[in-house]
């Protein structure tokens, strides 16, 4: 389960001017990755921190599986929720092993079980235990630190994960690598994830659902492709640059525009994986002397894509 409901939530900070969050109501579907997107000061981090009660709403309520989160002790609630932040916040005096085992230790898991779980998570995050288990955070690169941070957030197998700009401080290559990692994890683990970012590309790459925020108010909440196709107002248009058609194509699976294979496949063609986006397909199609693309699924040709097919847009069916 782990459906999160924000019910007319307001927040005003002490000595602040006006609402940091104003009348936000939102139903986060369980097992989906929901990205809070907006410029700084839009209230996205405040909203996130309300879920694990690092920030208490001034008004309104937040329900988790139908239960008001205020009915639980904050420490108990937080131990059930994974939390990862931009500065990672690894304990500098603890080894990788002790860092990852932090929440299980608080939950009094037996040592053997913690050890097993730590090794499992390191494998999941592509960290070689033989090399990294006994390292201290200062001995890791930024990307490795964030991998440990994510492993730590997943340690007690929480169903809900809060991620506050986790990749904001990383270089572009590492960021992309970890974004792909999150996509991979999400298909594997299927958690409910609330993810805060101000990076539009990151948001579009990861989100099942996108929440666009401005000055504490929820402007639009929908599937990313729907927001790109039907932005609610000028702000959303500008923020996401919705006029950029290439960007939209980046959210469309190539299978949505593919046709059945022609009788005779022209010699000059390339092959694209069925998981690729139309944007990637387009890029290949624009290459020299390329008449079309064969879409392959596990080595078998399943469809055919041409420039014409891309231009005519997606076939009928759910986005």
């Amino acid at each position, binding site marked *: 389960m782990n459906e999160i409901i924000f019910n007319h939530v307001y927040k005003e900070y002490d000595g602040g001017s006006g609402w940091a969050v104003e009348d936000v109501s939102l139903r986060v579907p369980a097992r989906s990755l929901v990205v809070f997107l907006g410029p700084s000061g839009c209230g996205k981090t405040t909203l996130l921190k309300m879920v694990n009660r690092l920030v208490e709403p001034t008004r309104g309520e937040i329900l988790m599986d139908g239960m008001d989160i205020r009915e639980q002790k904050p420490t108990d609630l937080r131990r059930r929720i994974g939390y990862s932040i931009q500065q990672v916040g690894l304990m500098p005096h603890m080894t990788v092993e002790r860092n990852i085992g932090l929440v299980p230790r*608080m939950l009094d898991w037996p040592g053997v079980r913690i050890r097993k779980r730590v090794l499992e998570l390191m494998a999941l995050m592509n960290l070689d235990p033989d090399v990294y288990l006994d*390292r201290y955070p200062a001995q890791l690169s930024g990307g490795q630190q964030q991998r440990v941070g994510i492993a730590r957030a997943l340690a007690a197998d929480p169903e809900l994960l809060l991620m506050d700009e986790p990749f904001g401080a990383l270089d572009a290559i590492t960021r992309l690598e970890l974004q792909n990692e999150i996509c991979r994890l999400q298909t594997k683990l299927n958690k409910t994830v609330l993810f805060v970012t101000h990076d539009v590309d990151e948001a579009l790459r990861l989100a099942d659902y996108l929440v666009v925020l401005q000055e504490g108010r929820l402007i639009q909440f929908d599937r990313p492709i729907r927001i790109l196709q039907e932005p609610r107002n000028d702000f959303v248009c500008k923020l996401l640059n919705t006029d950029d058609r290439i960007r939209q194509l980046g959210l469309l699976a190539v299978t949505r525009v593919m046709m059945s294979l022609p009788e005779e496949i022209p010699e000059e063609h390339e092959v694209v994986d069925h998981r690729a986006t139309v944007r990637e397909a387009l890029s290949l199609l624009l290459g020299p002397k390329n008449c079309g693309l064969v879409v392959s699924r596990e080595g078998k040709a399943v469809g055919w894509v041409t420039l014409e097919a891309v231009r005519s847009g997606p076939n009928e069916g759910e986005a």
Partner: protein
Amino acid sequence: MGYILSNPGLVAEYFVEHLSLAVLALLIAGVVALPMAWILFQNRKAASLVLGILGVLYTIPSIGMIILLIPVFGLNKGSVLVALVLYNQVLLVRNTLAGLESVSPAVREAAVGMGMSRLRLAWEVELPLALPVILAGVRIAAVVSISIATVGAKFGSGGLGVLLFEGISQSQPDKLWAGTIMITLLALGLFFGLKMLEEQIISDSRTVMDPKTG
């Protein structure tokens, strides 16, 4: 040197007396200062008030401080001990607070966000991370204690200071030298001993960059 060699028993006795007074004062001050600094850390207004008061105390010269305490604790070791505890208090509270402040907000936020209770945070995160700064404070407080305990001999607290004051009043340069040498040795020994202990405690490689990983 001659005096030390010809009276090793007496000098050793003074030495132990001196050291134990300083250590006792440090222990008492530490027991009070740690929780006090931790509470002050959560209450910024009280912190600046208390630090202000302690700062004023610290400016009082040691002889003056001991004399001020004599009406309350009598002309004996007690007044000297209390004076020592007060001076140590200033150094330890200040350094413990500075140590707590040196814990990165990100570390604190992650710890709290993962569900650490306030006490667990203090014991497992704040104390170990603040330890280097706290121990530096202990080291300075130890040296300060040795010097003030010397003055304390004038007020009946015993210790190596006795040699100094007797040396002066009896015009015995030998005694004076013996006292000076021993006090210097004690202060330097404590300073470097504690420094080594500190490095031992903080020697885990947590802040050392491994050149291989860069």
